[in-house]
């Protein structure tokens, strides 16, 4: 199928859900809930949040040199630097597990070793821009922030623990030669790129500035009043930057890569929303799974609830971003904030299929230790977060 027809189909599906006349449907049941939820996402989260986020992800993949980052993972790189870069570079390098796994394997076998490799493996899927933006928008900024901060801290701690636990083996193992870093000439100085990225991110943040609650005051309210004005300023800056500093060819690459992200993520995300609606219903409505079950298993902030959420998350496979609507559904049905974070921290980083690939790279023993560390730490952070936000 041609790209243009794929694009038209996506628009048609989006508009279909946007204007879905669900009030006219005679039934009120899980199927109704699934459609109603999809409509809500189409109205609230696609245009202002997902579309700009796709453009940012596309820009990152085209305009930031990946080679420049990979060199920090080399066999001779400083260890502290390798850990630090590994813990944050997921936001730039990784969007799907098919990018994360070859990099992980390369860092482990030919580069900085087990610790930084694990740090990258963990933070990669959790800290990508799309995931953080979407989490903050749909689940609230506390969870979005906790997810990002948790992912960075976790990845360093877990990576370092793995390094210590397998210290002897690591010392005996010799890196099998370094890897080649593909050379690229930067097409524009760093500060120009910085202005470009801050203007796109500015648009995203201020266009989505949430309506202040009754208790909010001061700056938050002021910014909300002027949010379209501020957004417009960033928009003008972006337009000027694009016109004066970018070649036509680069813009085309940017659009293509943003479109590829959208195409890769949207169909699975729609499916995730429909399934979440079907099983869990919207907030205040029930789907197939009764709310009392959810409340019993993962309600409140007990030790059991947190561990259950983190183990469930570790084994379950979530396609990119689908963890968000599923969690929204679970929270609506009575899941506690703590267990929700536990699931967010254990979920996207691990799944049964990716455990199998990890095992083929580092062996069964290290994989088991890694999974155990992630599950335990996710559960503990869940408990702490649950206490803090209460």
């Amino acid at each position, binding site marked *: 199928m041609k790209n243009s027809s794929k694009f038209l189909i996506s628009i048609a599906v989006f508009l279909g859900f946007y204007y879905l006349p669900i009030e006219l449907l005679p039934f009120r049941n899980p199927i109704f809930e699934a459609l109603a939820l999809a409509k809500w996402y189409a109205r609230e989260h696609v245009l202002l949040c997902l579309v700009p986020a796709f453009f940012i992800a596309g820009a990152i993949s085209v305009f930031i040199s*990946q080679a420049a980052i*990979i060199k920090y*993972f080399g066999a001779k790189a400083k260890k502290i630097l390798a850990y630090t870069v590994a813990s944050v570079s997921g936001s730039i390098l990784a969007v*799907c597990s*098919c*990018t994360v*796994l*070859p*990099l992980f*394997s*390369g860092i482990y*076998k*030919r580069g900085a070793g087990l610790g930084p490799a694990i740090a990258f493996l963990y933070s990669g899927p959790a800290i990508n821009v799309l995931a953080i933006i979407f989490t903050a928008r749909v689940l609230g900024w506390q969870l979005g922030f906790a997810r990002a901060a948790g992912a960075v801290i976790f990845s360093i701690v877990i990576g370092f623990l793995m390094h210590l636990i397998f210290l002897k083996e690591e010392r005996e193992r010799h890196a099998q*030669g370094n*890897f*080649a*870093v*593909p050379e690229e000439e930067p097409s524009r100085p760093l500060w120009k790129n910085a202005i470009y990225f801050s203007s796109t991110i500015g648009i995203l943040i201020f266009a989505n500035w949430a309506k202040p609650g009754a208790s909010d005051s001061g700056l938050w309210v002021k910014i909300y009043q002027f949010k379209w004005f501020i957004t417009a300023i960033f928009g003008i800056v972006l337009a000027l930057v694009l016109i004066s500093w970018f070649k036509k060819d680069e813009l085309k690459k940017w659009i293509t890569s943003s479109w*590829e992200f959208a*195409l*890769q993520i949207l169909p699975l995300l729609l499916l995730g929303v429909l399934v979440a609606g079907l099983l869990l219903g919207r907030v205040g409505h029930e789907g197939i799974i009764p709310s009392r079950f959810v409340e019993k298993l993962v309600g409140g902030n007990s030790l059991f609830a947190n561990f259950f959420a983190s183990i469930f998350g570790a084994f379950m496979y979530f396609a990119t971003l689908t963890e968000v609507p599923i969690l929204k559904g679970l929270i609506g049905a009575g899941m506690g904030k703590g267990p929700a974070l536990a699931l967010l921290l254990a979920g996207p980083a691990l799944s049964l299929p990716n455990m199998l*690939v990890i095992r*083929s*790279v580092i062996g069964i023993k290290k994989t088991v230790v890694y999974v155990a560390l992630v599950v335990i730490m996710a559960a503990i952070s869940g408990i702490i977060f649950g206490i803090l936000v209460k």
Partner: protein
Amino acid sequence: MKIQVYGKGCPKCHDLTHNVQEALKEIGKEDKVEHVADINKITEKGIMLTPALVIDDEIVSEGRILSVDDIKKAIMDK
């Protein structure tokens, strides 16, 4: 000529493979494109970013989907 696409099977890898096939067709060659999905083989080759295009055991590109024209040029240069 040995033409290989390295990658774990994500949509980008399929796009690259598709472009390579297209390029071969336009040149009129009938070489097969081999897909290497084994992660340990990807690492052994020294590839960090997938999808990667390898022609006669030499890495031509990493982490990018080359256009049909670029691939034609790379094949001609061999």
